[in-house]
């Protein structure tokens, strides 16, 4: 596992990544990481332009999320589109194939798909700004590996 020069661990776990387009309409390969949203394991693609993790709405339907404790969010921008939905608090697990899993309670966005919208082609997302940026991660493309870790106390960066 990765270490700092003083031998403190940088990462506590690692998993394999796969490269493929985010949707069937695209051709640019994206980084997909194995993740558990509230106990449902899926692959989410790493989107450095996204703030929160985004849970595919059909996966979210399996999680019995409490609407009373959610925060509605209109016009949430996901890549080039705006969608309405809700912010929830949810346990996210970065699933390790080496080392230890990393369990994080975090804010996720769940799109509320209107009948005229189609989300079926879109995957779940691991956003950078409000999630990945606040833990530690590294990617080794030569080994197709995603390393992750976190301090006990997470410091935020002021806007």
């Amino acid at each position, binding site marked *: 596992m990765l270490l700092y020069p003083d031998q403190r661990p940088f990462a*506590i776990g690692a*998993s*394999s*990544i*796969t490269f*493929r*387009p985010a*949707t*069937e309409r*695209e051709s640019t390969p994206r980084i*997909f990481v*194995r993740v558990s949203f*509230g*106990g*449902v*394991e*899926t*692959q989410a693609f790493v989107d450095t332009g996204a703030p*929160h993790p985004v849970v*595919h709405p*059909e*996966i979210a339907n*399996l*999680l019995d999320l409490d609407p009373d*404790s*959610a*925060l509605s*969010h209109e*016009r*949430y921008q996901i890549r080039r589109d705006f969608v309405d939905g809700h*912010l929830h*608090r949810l346990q996210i*697990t970065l*699933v*390790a*194939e*080496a080392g*230890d*899993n*990393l*369990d*994080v*309670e975090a*804010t996720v966005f769940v799109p509320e798909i209107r009948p005229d919208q189609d989300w*079926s*082609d879109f*995957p779940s997302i691991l956003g950078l*700004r*409000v*999630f990945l940026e*606040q*833990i530690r991660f590294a990617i080794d493309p030569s080994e*197709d590996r995603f390393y992750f870790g*976190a*301090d*006990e106390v*997470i410091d*935020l*960066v002021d*806007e």
Partner: protein
Amino acid sequence: MTDVAHHPKSALETEAYLGTEWSRLLEKAPTATSGSYARAHPFLEDTDGDILRSPRIQERVEHEGFYHGGTIVWSLARDLFPREPTTDECADLAMLELAAAAEAGDETAFLRTVNVMSWDTRPAEDFARAIRLALTAGAHLKAQRLAELGTANYPHHAELQRMAHVLAPPRVIAKKAPARPGTRADSEWIRTNAERYRGQWVALRDGELQGTSDSFEGLVRQIGNPKDTGVLVTKIS
């Protein structure tokens, strides 16, 4: 540009901010040519952009470089009010600017305004509103900060507590769950079979295909609810 025709607040909310002055201000605003600036401002829909069509405002926009909805209203209010706005009116105009920046999806303008506002004396309702506006503006970390500050100032305010809970920074709740080496085989399976199963939802466990379907719903019908089973469900794009 966002379509402001569906914004629910407009004149009523504006009146709440500016009181009776707003009505007089509306009466004084002459109607002239159309202006695109109205579309960026959420509080002017009921006026059909009349204020921003006025030559006087257009002149201000052209000569002073104002283009932001909230700034235009500020300028107009200062011109037409018979007296200087009170401190409260200034503060509420700042909320107007926040709303305009949020409606325009302008995170930079939102942060510029919110960072110079004094939040020590703001009521809890302003915190709640500013948090929602921050989310709309895309200022997610600022929403988090406002929620923290709001609950610190109003620890018994239920809505602010809920917001602070939902928006709290990520919290590591466990670090010692054991690894599952078999999950590597699932990634290998996807690398090997992605082309063949493109467009399909698949379920995998330790590199073994458990099910496949055109839809997520169809996959769950085959394999049951995958929650807490360790089965990977994903769409191959």
